[in-house]
C-alpha cells in the first residue's frame, strides 16, 4: 500500500490525514508536505495517524523534523494515534514524551482550543 496524504485547516489548526505505510520510500512525501505547510505559515499541525498501517524510524525522523520546524515559530505538532503497534515505536524511542498524542481529532482539537 502506498501513502495517501491530505490536509485541511480548522480554525488555527492544520489537520494532516495520513493513510498507508510510512517508510524510507514514502516518508519524503510526508516531509515535503510538512515543510510546505510550515513555509505557508501553518504552525499548528495535527497529524492523524489512525489509518497508518506501518511506521518505521524514517517516519519518526520526519515527524521530529516537522516538530522542530513548527517550534521555531512557537507552533506545535501533535498526533492522533491509538494503534498499539504504532505507539510501540514511539515508546521504544522515547518520543511519547516529545509529542502530544491524542485518541481522536476531536480530543486534540479540544486540547488545542484550551491552549489558545
Amino acid at each position, binding site marked *: 500500500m502506498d501513502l495517501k496524504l491530505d490536509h485541511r485547516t480548522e480554525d488555527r489548526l492544520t489537520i494532516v490525514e495520513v493513510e498507508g505505510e510510512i*517508510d*524510507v*520510500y514514502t516518508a519524503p512525501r510526508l516531509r515535503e508536505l510538512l515543510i510546505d505547510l510550515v513555509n505557508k505559515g501553518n504552525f499548528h499541525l495535527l497529524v492523524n495517524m489512525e489509518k497508518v498501517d*506501518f511506521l518505521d*524510524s*524514517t517516519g*519518526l525522523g520526519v515527524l521530529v523534523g516537522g516538530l522542530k520546524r513548527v517550534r521555531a515559530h512557537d507552533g506545535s505538532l501533535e498526533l492522533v494515534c491509538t494503534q498499539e503497534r504504532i505507539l510501540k515505536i514511539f515508546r*521504544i*524511542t522515547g518520543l*511519547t514524551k516529545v509529542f502530544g498524542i491524542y485518541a481522536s481529532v476531536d480530543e486534540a482539537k479540544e486540547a488545542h482550543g484550551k491552549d489558545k
Partner: protein
Amino acid sequence: MTEETETRAEGVAGIRDVVSIRLPAASAYLSVLRTATAGLAARLDFTLDEIEDLRIAVDEACAMLLSEAVPGTDLTAEFELTGQEMQVRVEVATVGSSAPKRDDFAWMVLTALADDVDAVAPSQGFPDRMAIVLRKRRGAAQRTAGPA
C-alpha cells in the same frame, strides 16, 4: 526479484528452511520484503505481535543498509527458519563505508524488536559488503526498551 527456497534438513525438530530473496537495493522494494517477512514468520507460528516486530526490524535493518548501498546493485535477504527461531541476514554492496550507525532511531528500534542483532562491517576479507544479522525467537520474553 528472485527467490530461492532450500530445505536443509527436516527432522523431529520440525522446519529448518532457508529462503533467499534478492531484490534491487532500492527503497521502493522494502514493502515487498516486509510482506515476505510476515509470511515466513507466520509459517513459524509467530504471534501477530512477533510478526509485526519482525516486519519492522527487517525494514529498519534494510533502511540502514540502503543508505550505504551502491546504486544499481542488489540487496539480498536470507531467512533461516528453524522450529523456534528466524534468523535474517540482509546484505548490500557498499564502497568506503564503515559499520552501520548505532546511535540513531533505526538502531534503537531494530535492537528493541529483535532478540539479537549483529552489524557486519566491511572487513579485510569483504571490503565491499555490509550486512546486518538479526534473530527473533518465538515466544521469547519481550524486552522493555526505552521509556514507557
